[in-house]
């Protein structure tokens, strides 16, 4: 059982959440070239280490939050408390 530390509810079973992935910066919609936009859509960061990622608590408080997880062992650190925080957002 994988416990995800929700920023509001505390640790809950992973089945209650939806994974939204590693943050990536979106290019400017008006000026992005097709290749650049497709890169943003399709190219992934696939880290095998401590990483920030978005989670959404679907069956609970329904907030988005950034969690920090080690993707090799699924160990979590305490979450960033606000969904508006800039921490961890990167290209």
């Amino acid at each position, binding site marked *: 059982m994988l416990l995800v530390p929700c920023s509001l509810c505390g640790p809950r*079973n992973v089945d209650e959440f939806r994974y939204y992935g590693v943050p990536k910066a979106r290019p400017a919609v008006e000026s992005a070239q097709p290749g650049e936009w497709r890169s943003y859509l399709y190219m992934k960061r696939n880290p095998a280490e401590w990483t920030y990622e978005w989670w959404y608590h679907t069956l609970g408080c329904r907030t988005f939050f950034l969690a920090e997880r080690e993707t090799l062992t699924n160990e979590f650190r305490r979450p960033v408390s606000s969904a508006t925080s800039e921490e961890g957002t990167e290209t």
Partner: protein
Amino acid sequence: MKQRERYSALSVVRHGLTREAWPRAWRTYDLKHTYDVVVIGAGVHGLATAYYLASVHGIRNVAVVDKAYLGGGGSGRNTAIVRSNYLTPEGVRFYDRSLKLYEGLAGELNYNVMFSKRGHLTLAHNDSSLRTMRWRAEVNKLQGVDSEVVGPSELKELIPFMDVSKHTRYPILGALYHPPGGTIRHDAVNWGYARAADALGVEIHQQTEVLAIERDMNGVRAVNTSRGRIDTRSIVNCTAGWATLIADMVGVRLPIETHPLQAAVTEPVKVFLHAVVVSGSLHVYVSQTDRGELVFGASTDPFLSYSMRGSLGFTEELASHILELMPGIGGLRLMRQWAGLCDLTPDFSPIMGVTPVNGFFLDVGWGTYGFKAGPAAGEAMAELVSSGKPPSLIAGFDLARFTDGRLTSERGAASVGH
């Protein structure tokens, strides 16, 4: 003791009478300073690539390196189903080539791979599913692959214990019946390719981790491993779930996210299931081994992870779905569960071919459907590395398709629960 020996009934008798030891299936070597080709990843794709490089193209100065033991990744963790009933013409052609190679593999490799062509059924529980089955059947037939849509009564004849009535929660409306599909002994395929490649002079280096890749203005130049440095101008990335870790070493970005795919197996019981049964709507697939164990698979874990452990959540989900289909097996004990890593792509098709880095080739993105493709992928990659040009069979799987906007979408046939 002989270095190499052909397996046969006669050799079994001879060894039984003389008690002579069998030669090792593959040898260990010190790492040389240079190889013509370095294949990273000793799974079915990497080993098949090395085998066809040596056997078809005469390129034998090849090293296959793996940070763990050969066949220990997805190649050893899959549920061993082989089929070619895909959705796109490119996909069907590709997997059918693989199936044809599998048919002759035991003879070619002199290794019993236990290919059992028992038939493959994909159940449809609603109208849109049935429509997709019909679509797949027609595409298959156009490519010369035997697939047909069957109704509930025909399904009942194929699998007598299946409840095809309208009284189930998700009544079965029909199925895609694919007679050439079946099961195979996945470990034997890995070992067979390893042994045959080794016999041709390919060196398999296990417990040899790639730490860095050196480049110069002409492309790749060397591979730095935990056992030493190798000069080479050709590198093939066959690392599946770890694909981006290797690609990052040369600055090649991939549209790949690694998710675990779990599987489980029950205690052995008398054989009652003679075909492979898949249900997309129920998110489950099942087959029975010759030993009598039921082998199950379901959906990938819905988050990025490099963990290869099973979870209770999977078992609960699996049980609820499989018991919809076969209520009678509720009393069976689950013996073992595990996971493998799947390199998922946005269009559920692989990524094969060249990259912007000269000499760095890709055979990745195989997601949850890599094992059945091993032989055809190895054959195609060997041709690519040998000639420098991607064969037409894999033209639709190039990396550039993502930035060019021409995806090859196999979501309808690539498996369950995506």
